[in-house]
């Protein structure tokens, strides 16, 4: 349905469940994909699975020099970055009263600041091309809050504010900026939850199940498509009705 032939997409955190799903969806729609992440092995495996039009671009987003280099490497490998998916994220959960500066800083650095830096670097080409898509992966937690995740929630809410401001600035140039905010999705990040935690969470989800990475990927694919050109500054919540905004 959505055709991304001729477009190039850079996806951070592509070694994770959601990032991998996004890469597959965009690639399946015809895009060339740049797979970024810290762990090379799963990226190589994903690239091998995808075959043509897939490039491995390892990057540690907590390393500012590496973040600065990534957009250039992506443009060299793919010719351009038409679609940027800020997906990478880490958690360092702790009760607010116990949260260390290090826990706060590392989550803000990877989840928010690196997104700003990558976005800034990729905008130049998008502005020139008069076409671009910035899609950041937020979280239901960014809108609803979650005990133990003050840092993560702040970073994810920060992405929403950043996206809205950016959307104002670049809308006239054919560049859109949006957020996809997943609820509880079956990934390595949520596998760490105990069965008790999972059933407690599912009790709050009207859909009565966890979401799948493909369901996040489908939302990203839509926002990346030419058909979504009039959608900007939006947050698309994909959470089974867990929280309705």
């Amino acid at each position: 349905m959505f055709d991304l032939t001729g477009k190039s997409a850079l996806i951070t955190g592509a070694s994770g469940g959601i990032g991998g799903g996004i890469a597959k969806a965009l690639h399946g729609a015809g895009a060339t994909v740049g797979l970024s992440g810290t762990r090379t092995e799963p990226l190589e495996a994903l690239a091998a699975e995808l075959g043509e039009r897939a490039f491995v671009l390892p990057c540690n987003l907590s390393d500012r020099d590496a973040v600065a280099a990534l957009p250039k490497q992506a443009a060299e490998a793919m010719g351009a970055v038409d679609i940027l998916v800020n997906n990478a994220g880490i958690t360092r959960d702790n009760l607010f009263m116990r949260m260390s500066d290090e826990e706060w800083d590392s989550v803000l650095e990877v989840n928010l600041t690196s997104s700003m830096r990558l976005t800034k670097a990729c905008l130049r080409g998008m502005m020139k091309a008069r076409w671009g898509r910035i899609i950041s992966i937020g979280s239901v937690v960014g809108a609803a809050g979650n005990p133990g995740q003050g840092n993560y929630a702040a970073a994810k809410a920060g992405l929403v504010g950043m996206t809205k401001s950016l959307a104002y600035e670049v809308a006239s140039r054919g560049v859109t900026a949006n957020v996809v905010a997943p609820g509880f999705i079956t990934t390595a990040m949520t596998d760490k939850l105990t069965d008790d935690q999972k059933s407690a969470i599912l009790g709050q989800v009207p859909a009565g199940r966890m979401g799948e990475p493909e369901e996040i990927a489908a939302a990203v694919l839509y926002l990346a498509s030419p058909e979504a050109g009039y959608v900007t500054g939006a947050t698309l919540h994909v959470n089974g009705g867990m929280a309705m905004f």
Partner: protein
Amino acid sequence: MSDVEKRVRKIVVEHLGVEEEKVVESASFIDDLGADSLDTVELVMAFEEEFGIEIPDDAAETIQTFGDAVSFISQNTD
């Protein structure tokens, strides 16, 4: 008219869609030529590409008029 001036004027005329006669030395991109702040960022990007130079952000902020652009570029190219 210098070569730099000609090339800069061409970029300004094309990007802002203004009459060539209006692009005089004292013409402010924003006040006289109808640019918005994003246009000025894009003009600087276009100058960088045309002349193969890098214009740092603090220098870019000082380029307010056509004359500013021509003199900055003249001083920073061979």
